[in-house]
């Protein structure tokens, strides 16, 4: 363990760093035909890159995640979003691996997105921000990995939208990833998944404060974003986990009936929704959910054809109670690996937490990931 660690299993204070590329006259070309430049990516790193630069692991976050995956920011009470999995002695062991987490482009946590200043107008992009895709996010990350001097990553890993980036990484840069861990994800976004995202987008756009995306400096579309977040939270949980967490319990204080939250579940959703504006930009929500909806990796070709001849080793994890990204979608990825002759492990974990399981079910995931990474690291040494 490195000197100065707070305690076994937790990182010292960490800081977000920024990498900017595509300065004029260069631009970053996007899959949809748009151009961006300059482009900034926010990222954090944990652990130390070894001499032959073979221990790099890229962690990819979900829809509303950010670069702060582990450790504590100065003054913060809560650690990064996957701190249970990243740190000394944890699944992504920072004593052994150099772990990188980058924020996606289109985001609002330090990377170039719709709330960033458009250099052409001197004002926030708003809806002038070009359409982005999962592939664009991955291409931008590849620039960051170039900048960090890493030719080949030991692993790319992530859940939900992070898992989509994992799959895109393998297909776009197969020689650059020794292994891949897609969790609770899909290779093709389904109509049901698009439908939930569309409800979220409609809620944001129906908020009068949204103002066609031009709300920066004025009143924010708080309520629209809040409703979008509420829908999101419902899809991340399961019937069982909601039953356990809230039951039909009602709040204590008695107020005259005016459709104010009575049930605990209502209060929870409203609280989560209303607070979301503090950390997320509504336009980013629109752009990123759209990028997710566009995601169809195989696009009629058949995923197994894209994976043929690929040397990347897979660990595919799904959760039985996840109805947003149901196990059958992970099984499709596993089947494509089978057909393509790609080395793979597929595991369906028992959990009541629904889609959220990938963030909260630590022990079993950590077991799988630890042993899988051991094997991959060994096979690279040989």
């Amino acid at each position: 363990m490195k000197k100065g660690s707070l305690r076994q299993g937790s990182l010292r204070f960490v800081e977000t760093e920024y990498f900017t590329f595509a300065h004029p006259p260069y631009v970053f070309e996007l899959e949809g035909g748009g151009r961006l430049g300059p482009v900034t990516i926010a990222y954090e790193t944990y652990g130390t890159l070894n001499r032959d630069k073979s221990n790099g692991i890229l962690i990819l976050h979900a829809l509303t995640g950010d670069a702060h995956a582990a450790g504590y920011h100065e003054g913060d009470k809560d650690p990064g979003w996957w701190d249970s999995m990243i740190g000394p002695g944890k699944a992504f062991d920072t004593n052994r691996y150099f772990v990188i987490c980058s924020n996606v482009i289109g985001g609002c946590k330090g990377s170039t997105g719709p709330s960033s200043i458009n250099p052409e107008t001197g004002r926030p992009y708003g809806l002038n921000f070009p359409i982005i895709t999962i592939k664009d996010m991955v291409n931008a990350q590849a620039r960051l990995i170039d900048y960090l001097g890493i030719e080949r990553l030991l692993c790319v890993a992530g859940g939900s939208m992070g898992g989509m980036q994992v799959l895109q990484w393998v297909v776009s840069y197969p020689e650059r990833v020794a292994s891949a861990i897609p969790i609770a994800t899909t290779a093709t976004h389904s109509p049901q998944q698009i439908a939930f995202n569309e409800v979220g987008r409609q809620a944001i756009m129906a908020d009068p404060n949204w103002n066609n995306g031009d709300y920066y400096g004025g009143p924010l579309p708080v309520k629209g974003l809040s409703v979008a977040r509420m829908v999101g939270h419902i899809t991340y949980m399961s019937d069982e986990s909601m039953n356990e967490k809230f039951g039909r319990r009602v709040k204590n204080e008695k107020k005259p009936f005016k459709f104010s939250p009575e049930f605990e579940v209502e209060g929870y959703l409203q609280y989560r929704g209303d607070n979301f504006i503090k950390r997320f930009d509504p336009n980013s929500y629109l752009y990123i959910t759209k990028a997710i909806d566009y995601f169809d990796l195989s696009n009629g070709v058949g995923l197994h054809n894209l994976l043929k001849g690929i040397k990347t080793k897979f660990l595919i994890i799904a959760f039985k109670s996840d109805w947003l990204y149901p196990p059958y979608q992970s099984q499709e990825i596993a089947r494509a690996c089978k057909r393509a002759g790609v080395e793979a492990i597929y595991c369906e974990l028992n959990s009541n937490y629904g889609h959220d399981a990938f963030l909260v079910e630590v022990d079993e995931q950590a077991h799988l990931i630890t042993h899988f990474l051991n094997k991959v690291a060994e096979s690279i040494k040989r």
Partner: protein
Amino acid sequence: MKTGLDHRIIMEFIDDGSTVLDLGCGTGELLCLLAEEKDVKGQGIEIDDKAIFECVAKGLNVFHDDIDTGLPEYGDKSFDYVVLNQSLQQVKKPDHVLREAIRVGRKVIVGIPNFAYIKARLQIGFLGRVPVTPSLPYQWYDTPNLHFLSLLDFIEYCHKKGFVIEKSRYIGKKREVHILPNLFALTGVFLLAGEVKG
């Protein structure tokens, strides 16, 4: 850990450096042995959660899947060997699974418990009880076995279906059985050709 005789025999059947698909690989002992001693590139399919964790801890590639439905993705002859050791009697449709195994493998290895083992016969015939033997160790109410067959049943079935048995070995309590295997063997291990006759 001491290697079981069935594993030893299966190891003898398998050539060095080949590819093996183990259907119902359990905790992965056989695949682990094959990787270590025979430089085999293995893939397991297993339905039990806990067994999967042990496989991954051993560094094996394993799919959490049902072998009744888990084979159609594999192309013809995509493995040198497909192993069904003590799992054929546990699947819903053994005939379908074995046919699929023969399609996917160049050779197929099947290990089955013998329901006609002498002590099983005695338990049924004299005691009037459903047999519990070292190769059929389960009580009727918690057995994973769905089908009960003797070694002769299997051999006759293979003849009828055109499956070609290339080698067969029989195992008793501690050693191999050469005389009257259907009476004295607990387990049979068969090497089947990868094609169907006729």
